[in-house]
């Protein structure tokens, strides 16, 4: 029995190599772990930068973004909680916030009281869903993302990678805003991203 419990516990620890490395950076300021993360993520961040179709973004900013994001990763790694998110999701959120802040700094002469990461401050709390549940939803996501119809995939890429709002996407694609929104909603339903509040309460009771 104890063996089973142990096995269960170890299976819910996030064990992908990037999350382990990021935890090492956070806990031990481990430079070689950081260099390994850099080699894996820097090219991904660069292509995330290259994907930007924001007004005012230019290629010269691509490597600036890589540097800024990786330095933030070093500075903030101590706050990384592997029970909440994978390293990739965590680094994606850092990259997203940095990309927006760089744009705002470039286009805005006014002093901005909030950095983008301020919007994402999370209260300290227990993990909202169990790690096991999260992993299942991540696997489902990976699978279902590759099976989305082209028109749904296209809109998700426009919004997440190019940084277009729904309104901008609708203009570019020559589609009514309502159609863009419903395609997004269909995609999220297929990937089972959104659990209606009622269902979630039921799930919580079942556990």
């Amino acid at each position, binding site marked *: 029995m104890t063996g089973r419990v142990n096995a269960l516990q170890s299976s819910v620890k996030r064990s992908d190599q990037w999350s382990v490395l990021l935890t090492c950076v956070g806990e031990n300021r481990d430079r070689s772990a950081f260099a390994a993360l*850099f080699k894996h993520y820097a090219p991904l961040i660069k292509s995330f930068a290259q*994907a930007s179709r924001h007004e005012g973004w230019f290629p010269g900013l691509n490597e600036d973004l890589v540097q800024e994001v990786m330095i933030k990763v070093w500075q903030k790694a101590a706050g990384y909680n592997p029970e909440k*998110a994978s390293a990739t999701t965590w680094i994606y959120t850092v990259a997203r916030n940095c990309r927006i802040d760089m744009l705002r700094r470039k286009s805005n002469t006014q002093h901005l009281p909030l950095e983008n990461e301020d919007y994402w401050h999370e209260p300290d709390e227990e993990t909202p869903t169990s790690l096991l549940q999260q992993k299942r939803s991540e696997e489902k996501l990976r699978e279902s993302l590759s099976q989305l119809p082209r028109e749904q995939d296209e809109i998700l890429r426009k919004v997440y990678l190019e940084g277009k709002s729904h309104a901008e996407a609708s203009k570019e694609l020559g589609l009514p805003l309502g159609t863009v929104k419903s395609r997004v909603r269909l995609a*999220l339903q297929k990937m089972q991203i*959104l*659990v209606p509040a009622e269902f979630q309460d039921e799930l919580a009771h079942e556990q």
Partner: protein
Amino acid sequence: MNNKTRHHPDTSMLLEFSAGTLDTAASICVSAHLHFCAHCRDSLLRLDQVGSKLMEDAETQPMDDALLENVMQQIDRLDDVSDAAPAKPTTATKMAEADYPPSVNKLIEADDKPPRWRRLSGSVDMARLKTGQNDFEVALHRICAGGKTPKHDHGGLEYTVVLKGSFSDERAVYSEGDFILRKPGDTHQPMGAQNGECICLSAQSAPIKLTSPWGFLMNNWLRISPR
């Protein structure tokens, strides 16, 4: 931090928030809602996973090693500085409260001219917040216990998040964390709950319009000033 919020931003707002394409004023309101709503935080995590998967699947080219060296050097310098840096003093103003979303408190405290309450009517006070954008007036509204506000329509979009207490209108009762979106044509008359004052964060893209017979006389005074 409760999980009893009943009124949430819709799916496309949350997704735009996750992708970072939502405008500043709306983002401030969604962020305030997330502080109170575990359900939306959970949805957001999964929406962030969509973004991270899309980032992860991209085709990549190898990076120049010089960039890694450069970043390593910057990190060395950072570590030297951060060892010596003293803790930043925080200036608490009266308006910030421990239970508020950190983003709201930061807005209150970051302002060089501390926001202050101004009387709007017998039962409503308002304090404008500086957010560095020009499309929405972002402000705190305070309705006193049992306070009635005039019946009004909306000239544009209005986002409201209840930060403290509760209020009601013809449709529902709204309590801490609830997120409400009003559009032109949505006429309502909010009333503060009897058991205490209610404080809301709001963002308006155009002034409200009073709908009482003599309201048109007042409408000229109802201006918004985004800052």
